[in-house]
C-alpha cells in the first residue's frame, strides 16, 4: 500500500464542503480528510501502489473545483509501479 499526503487548493467559487463530499464519493475509505484551512484542504490517500497514487493526483488536479494539488508526503518504501493499475 502507498500513502500520499496532499494539500488541495480549492477553486474560489467552490465550497470546500462540496469538494469534501465529492472526494468522499469518489475515493471512499481510501481517503482521509483533514480540517480545511481557508481554501486549502489536507488529505491522505491510500492506494495499492505509488503509481496509482500518482494517477489519483492527476485525476484530482483535473477535478472541477480544484485549483491545485500539492504533494507533500509520499511513502517511499511502497512497491514499484505495476502496469494496469491506473484508475478508470
Amino acid at each position, binding site marked *: 500500500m502507498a500513502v500520499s499526503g496532499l*494539500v488541495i487548493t480549492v477553486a474560489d467559487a467552490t465550497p470546500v464542503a462540496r469538494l469534501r463530499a465529492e472526494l468522499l464519493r469518489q475515493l471512499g475509505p481510501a481517503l482521509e480528510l*483533514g480540517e480545511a484551512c481557508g481554501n*486549502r484542504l489536507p488529505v491522505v490517500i491510500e492506494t495499492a501502489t505509488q503509481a496509482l497514487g500518482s494517477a489519483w493526483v492527476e485525476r484530482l488536479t483535473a477535478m472541477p473545483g480544484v485549483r491545485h494539488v500539492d504533494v507533500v508526503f509520499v511513502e517511499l518504501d511502497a512497491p514499484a509501479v505495476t502496469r494496469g493499475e491506473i484508475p478508470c
Partner: protein
Amino acid sequence: MLTPPELDRRSFMKGAALAAATAVAQRTGTADDQAQPAANDGVVWNKAPCRFCGTGCHVQVGVQHDRVVAIAGDVQAEVNKGLLCVKGYHVGQILYGPDRLTTPLLRHDGELVPIGWDEAIDVIAERILRQPERFAFYGSGQWTIPEGYAAQKFMKGGLANNHIDPNARLCMASAVTGFLATYGVDEPAGCYDDLDACDVLITWGNNPAEMHPVLFSRVIDRRSRGESVMLIDIGTRRTRTTEFAQHYLEFRPHTDLAIANGIAHLLIRDQTFAADFVARHCAFRAPSDPPTLNGRAISFEEYQAMVAPYTPEYVEQISGVPAADIRMLAALFGRRDLRITSLWCMGMNQHTAGTAINCLVHGVHLLSGHFGRPGDAPTSLTGQPSACGTVREVGTLAHALPGGRLVVNEDHRRQCEELWNLPAGRINPAPGHHTVKMWQSFCTARADGGDIDTLWVQVTNPGQTLPDLHRLFDARQGKDDKFLIVSDVYPTATTALADLVLPSAMWVEKNGMFGNSERRTQQWFRQVMPPGDARDDCWQTIAVAHRLFELGCEGMQDKDGRFLFDVRDDSGEVVPVWDWSHYYNVNVDRHLFEEYRRFSRLKHKDLAPYAEYVRARGLRWPVVEQPDGSWRETRFRFAEFDDPYVKAGSAIQFYHSVTKDDRAQVWFHPYAPPPEVPDAAFPFWLCTGRVLEHWHTGSMTRRVAPLSRAVPRAYVELNPDDARSLGVHNGELVRVESRRGAIEVPAWINGRGRPPRGSVFVPFFDERRLINQVTLDAHDPFSKQPDYKKCAVRLTRVAADPR
C-alpha cells in the same frame, strides 16, 4: 480504563501524512480565507438565507453592478456548512425571469392595466373601509418575520379583524396542533444536530433526499465516512430516500396511525418502554366527546387497553406492513443504547388525522424514552423558509396572536393590547376564518352567505395550491362583488384572476428575516434594487394602513392617537415610512422586530436583539442573555443540559405542560379510514407532492432554465402493472380524474418515484397542469389542514406520447 489502539506501520504513515499535509495547509492559509469567497472583479459578497425551503441554508450572494451574479454556499453556516442543493445553487437566478411584475395593475373590462401606487393604495383602502369585517388577508410561510408581523398588527391590532391566515395552514398546521397537544407549546424540542448524532433515522411519509437534500446529506455524509446510521423509510411509495434506506416499509395511505399504535402496543406488551421516563415525565390522553385539542386524561392502564388491539398482525392487516417489520421498529425503539430521530413533513401533516398522527409519533418517542438527548428526537420539518419564524411564532393564523398567544384568551388579548398600546378590548376574541373557510367564503356570493368580499394575498399562490381549486378558487369568477388583491413577483395562476396586482420586491431585493425548521431565526440586508416599481410587501401593508389612518380609521391609531406603525429615527423624529421614498431611511425591519420580540418571552421563545442576527448565521431560540452580555442560543429544549429554563435537577421538564405538571402527553388515537377511499368508480389513490428541482408552485424555479429543463412538466407516476392494465406507455397522456375535477398529464413509469399498484403520484409545481383541481378539501378537525396525500381518482389513457 481505555486501552490505546495498536499503532501499526500503516496507521503511523497515514498519521504522518496527514500531519504533514495539515501543517503545510496551515502555513500557507490565513483565517481570512474562511470568512467569505474572495472578492473578484468587484463582486461584493454578503450573507442571506436561501429563499427556498424550511431547511434554512445560508448562502453567500455575490453582487456586481446591482445584480446577483454568483451564489456560494456559506461555509460559516452551521445548517449547511457550505453545501447547497441544486435549487440553492440557482437561487440567484429567481430574480431575473423576463416577466417580473414591475407596476401595479388594475383590472378594467377584463384587462389588467398599469396604474400608479397611490391609486392602488387608494383602491385597497376604499375596499377595506366599506366593510372592514368583510376583508381578509391571506399570507404566507414565505413572509419575512417583519412582513408577517406588520400584517398581524394591521389586522388584529388595527382592524380588530381575525380573518388573517397563511398558506402554511396547508403545510404544517397539524404539526402545530400535534406539538401543542403533546408539549403544550409549538415547535421541535431538538434541532438539526440530532441528525449528526442519531443511530437510526426514520422517515415517516417523508422524502428528504429530494425535499430537504442538504439535511439528508448530513446523514448520508456520516455513512460515507464509515459511521453506522440505519435508515428506515416508512412511506406509501418508493422515492429517492428509499434508495438509501436499509428498510422500506410500504403502508396503505392513512394507516400510519395503526403503525404508530402497533409500536406502542409492543413496547408495553414486551415491557421495553421507558418506565422510569414515563413515570417521571409523561401523562396520557385520549380523544374526548365532543372532540377537543386537549382531549381527556386517561391512566396508563387505560392507554394500555386502548393500544392492546394493535398487535403486529392486526397492524399488518390494516396497513400492509409485515408484522415482522412492526416488531423490528418496536425492537429498535425498545433499545436505550440507540438514538432514534423521526423525521416527517407533509405525509403526516397533510392528513385528515394529521394532529392524531403527529401526537402518536411524539408518543412513541416519549413512551420509549427516545427524547431529550442529541439524536433522540421526533422532528417535524417545514417546507417554507419561514413557516416557523413568521406563521407559527408571529401567529399569523386566524386564531393566534404573537408569541404563542390565542385570540380567545382574555389575558393574551390584554397583553397584546398593552404591548401595542391599544385601547382595551380592541382585539376581537372570535377566531377568524381558517384558509379553507376563508376561500370558501370568498367564493360564495354575499347573497348566499359569503362573508368575505375583499381578499389580499401576499407572497403565495393559492390559485395553484388550494385543494379542490374549482370550488375554492375558480368559483370566485363572475362574482362582481368580490375583489382579489395579489402582491407577487411574477404572474401566476392567482394573479390571473386578480382584480388588483401589486409588484413585490423579492428576497435580497429587500431586508428580511426568516425562521427555519430548527427554531433558527436568520437575517439579511437588501443587496440589490427591485425591478421597476416593485416594492416591499411590508411597505405595502404600512402604506395601506397609513391611508386608512389619513381617512380617519380609528383602528390605525393606538390609544394615544399615534399611527399604528409609528417609526422614529435615532433622534426621535417620525420617519414617514409609508412614503416609499423614505422607507429605507431607517431599518423598518429592525424597528418591527424589536417591537415583536417583546412578545416572545411568554412561551419561552425568547429572541435576541436584531443586531445579534446581523452578526450570526441565525440563532436558535430561546436565545438568552448571559451575564457577560453575550446571547446564548438553545439547541435542545426541555432538557436540563441545554435549556436554561429547565429547573435544576429536573433532567427533563415540559414547562408548558397542558396538565400543568411538567409532563408531556402520550396520546392514544384510534385508526379510522380517511373520508375518501378508492372505490369501483375511482379505483386509485392519488398522492401529490413536490420534486427536487422545483419549489412549491414553481413560480420561481420554472423561470430558472437549468431547473426547468431538468423537470419541464408535471407527470403522473404509476405502477408498471397498472400501466400495462390501462394500456399506458411511458410518456403517454393520462387523464387523472376525481369527483372534483380532472387534468391530463404524461405518464412516468419506473421513474424516480415508484408507487405500488393502485396508487399514483402527481407533483403540483406545474401551473399548466393544476393537480389541485383534482384534490380533496377535507381537513383535520383541529388544525384545519387539508389532506393532499390521498383522494380517489380514475385514470384513462388519452393519447400517444405528445412529444
